[in-house]
């Protein structure tokens, strides 16, 4: 056990000793901290303690239905201690006779959505929650059907009930509402936006999501792991590789195996390729949304080269079908290094020219700067992650803070901007593409011939593990729990979009309606990853 793990455990024991049932560290950096039964009241206190003591950021929270085995529901609150590369998971039992718990979100607003999701999916009520509206469940979903409970069959079809969305109304002279969606004007995913405006400026935005909810987490319960892997590739199409890498990581930690070095480098290569094609596409779409079509055309042309390269390397333009439990499915022939490097050189040159076109144009800068500002304080308070966080001055990146694969062997910089506007979020993407290019060059340099996968044989029963990867949008965290036979009994998927959607509401305030598409695109959040 590392010195740092020991220090955290000692501190937790000193502070909460008699309230704890268990305190143990597994998989190197996961510290599980179990509250004794009937000590649920201590849950918020413990979470805020961890948050303040180590400046730990809230990652996600989820519940699991353990009624069959232990007669309880279990809550999990996951925190990340970035400087120490540690995770603390606080667990607490909720008795089925009294399905409620004191809200942590009342003290730590970052847990707002997570607790509402727990309420909708498990029927466990967070008491004193600051905003106890429905989240996942649409108004026509029956109020007493809780789909993540084990006694709710995956294939049941509850009758639709009467009901309306709960939107708060902004009133005053000249104030009116603009409803948008769920079917949007562009080629994007479905969601509903409700603007309250007075003239052009937006007074408030309310977002109703979960139109694309596909029961992804429940679907994987009991599924053979290889099949669940293919589901994980389809959580959010633009992050196919990152999500499946996080899934594999969790399974490999469960099985207690380390994948071969070459497989780790290959995964890094594909993660960076995914980052590049998405960033390029976003730069293009941001240009498109400010009617700078020439920028759009060039960015999309360059991005198409990335898609062609991905297809050449993996057989799939979205890098699907490459990850496997214990490594990757196919090796990368040395002969292809050349086409990778030449494509990267071309992208480097083209993006430099494109950035020059964009950032020296007065009309572009006028649209980008001071538009859609997300302040650092708001970003920190509501728990923003990934590129949106780094554009608001929060220096966090799982590749550096929780080194996975071989990232600790490769020097790279994490671009951080302070202004929190659309400009910062665009600039970050440009910088990160250049960083990814140099990361890939180092990966190709360091990669030695060798095995690309190891067999994953036995998955232990009643075990749990986290898996994670820094996707292009932000950190992706998966938590897998197994039943007595080693099958998936609970699979929690945490996509960065789930944390960043609330940011949009703050970023658009005071901006004009025509800037909304631009601000929205600068976050480019996944609906499917959020809704699952």
């Amino acid at each position, binding site marked *: 056990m590392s010195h740092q793990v020991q220090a955290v455990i000692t501190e937790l024991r000193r502070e909460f000793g008699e309230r704890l049932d268990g305190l143990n560290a597994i998989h190197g950096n996961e510290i599980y901290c179990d509250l004794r039964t009937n000590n649920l009241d201590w849950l918020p206190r413990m979470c805020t303690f961890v948050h303040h003591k180590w400046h730990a950021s809230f990652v996600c929270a989820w519940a699991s239905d353990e009624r069959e085995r232990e007669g309880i529901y279990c809550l999990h609150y996951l925190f990340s201690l970035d400087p120490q590369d540690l995770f603390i998971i606080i667990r607490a039992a909720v008795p089925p006779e009294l399905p409620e718990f004191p809200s942590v979100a009342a003290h730590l607003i970052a847990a707002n959505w997570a607790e509402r999701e727990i309420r909708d999916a498990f029927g466990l009520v967070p008491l004193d929650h600051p905003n106890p509206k429905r989240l996942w469940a649409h108004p026509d979903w029956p109020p007493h059907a809780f789909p993540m409970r084990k006694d709710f069959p995956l*294939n049941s079809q509850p009758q639709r009930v009467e009901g309306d969305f709960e939107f708060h109304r902004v009133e005053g002279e000249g104030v009116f509402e603009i409803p948008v969606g769920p079917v949007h004007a562009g*080629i994007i995913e479905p969601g509903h936006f409700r603007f309250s405006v007075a003239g052009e400026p937006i007074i408030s935005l309310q977002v109703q999501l979960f*139109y694309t*909810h*596909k029961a992804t987490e429940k679907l994987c319960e009991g599924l053979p792991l290889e099949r669940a892997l293919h589901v994980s590739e389809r959580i959010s*199409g633009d992050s196919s590789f990152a999500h499946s890498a996080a899934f594999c990581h969790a399974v490999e930690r469960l099985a207690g195996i380390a994948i071969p070095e070459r497989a780790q480098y290959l995964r890094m290569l594909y993660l960076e390729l995914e980052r590049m094609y998405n960033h390029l596409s976003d730069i293009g779409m941001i240009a498109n949304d400010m009617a700078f079509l020439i920028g759009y055309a060039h960015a999309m042309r360059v991005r*198409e080269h990335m898609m062609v390269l991905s297809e050449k390397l993996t057989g799939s333009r979205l890098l*699907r079908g490459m990850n496997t439990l214990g490594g990757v499915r196919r090796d990368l022939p040395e002969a292809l290094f050349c086409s990778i490097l030449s494509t990267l050189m071309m992208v480097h040159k083209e993006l430099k020219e494109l950035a020059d076109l964009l950032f020296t144009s007065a009309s572009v800068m006028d649209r980008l700067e001071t538009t859609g500002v997300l302040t650092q304080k708001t970003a920190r308070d509501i728990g923003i992650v990934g590129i949106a966080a780094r554009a608001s001055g929060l220096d966090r990146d799982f590749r550096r803070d929780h080194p996975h694969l071989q990232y600790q062997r490769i020097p790279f910089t994490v671009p951080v901007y302070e202004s929190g506007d659309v400009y910062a979020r665009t600039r970050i993407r440009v910088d990160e593409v250049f960083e990814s290019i140099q990361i890939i060059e180092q990966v190709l340099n360091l990669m030695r011939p060798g095995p690309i996968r190891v067999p994953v044989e036995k998955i232990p029963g009643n075990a749990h593990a986290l898996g994670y990867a820094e996707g292009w949008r932000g950190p992706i965290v998966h938590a897998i729990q197994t039943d007595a036979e080693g099958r998936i009994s609970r699979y929690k998927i945490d996509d960065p979009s789930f944390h960043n959607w609330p940011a949009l509401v703050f970023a658009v305030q005071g901006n004009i309606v025509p800037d909304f598409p631009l601000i929205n695109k600068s976050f480019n959040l996944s609906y499917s990853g959020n809704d699952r």
Partner: protein
Amino acid sequence: MLKILRKTLKTGRVTTQYPLKLAEPPEGFLGKPVIDFTKADLGKLRLAESVCPTRAITMETDGAKSIVKLSYASCIFCGRCAEAYPEAIRITKEFELAAPLKEHLVRSAQFVAGKLVLVDVPPRQPNLEELGERAKKEIYRVFGRSLHIRQVDAGSCNGCELEISALNNPVYDLERFGLHFVASPRHADMLLVTGPVTRNMEIALQQTYEATPAPKLVVAVGACACSGGIFAESYASRGGVDKVIPVDVYIPGCPPRPQAILQGTLLAIRQMKS
């Protein structure tokens, strides 16, 4: 301004010649899996069936008779079946698989007492050069000058959206066929629908369909839209577009390549005539 002009001139034309020139995928491309039923052994096919993540391969046994089916409507092109049984299943580079009927996307064979007795081969779809030329004529004839498309995401993972929006980029440039994406179903002649149709999108999809003026076409894009794909049917998913609205053409793929979406769209326009 000068910089922009210089860059444009330097870049030149980038649009592909597809479909006049075919777009051969690279080596290792995960395309259509093909079962050689004449070489196949039932026991080993069962192994391929067991590794298929979407039940695209199914086997029904009734006494001595067995029917093996492979449906491209459900296939996500992961290549697991060919890994499990390489002697009889191979991954080809074929990717233009669109068909107007779901039955056309099924290959099946009958075995009696382990012996192959019948292989069912559906009709071939018209080739592409033909479709490209004919599509232009059809668009002129049926819709005047152009065909307007409304894309509807009925719960996809956004993979299909990435490839559909790629059709708008300068490389694929959909507009050269007179095809154009519009912002409202009221302006549309065709709905391009992705996703398994989630419970929460079902009503919105129906309303979008009703809002589209006749004559209208519906094209289901991707494994989820064709069959429910990996999400199949559940409390949250209806299991395919045709469970909710009538579909004119199915485009398999997970996601389909941009060229495959184009081919399916052109095929739908051809359907319009018949």
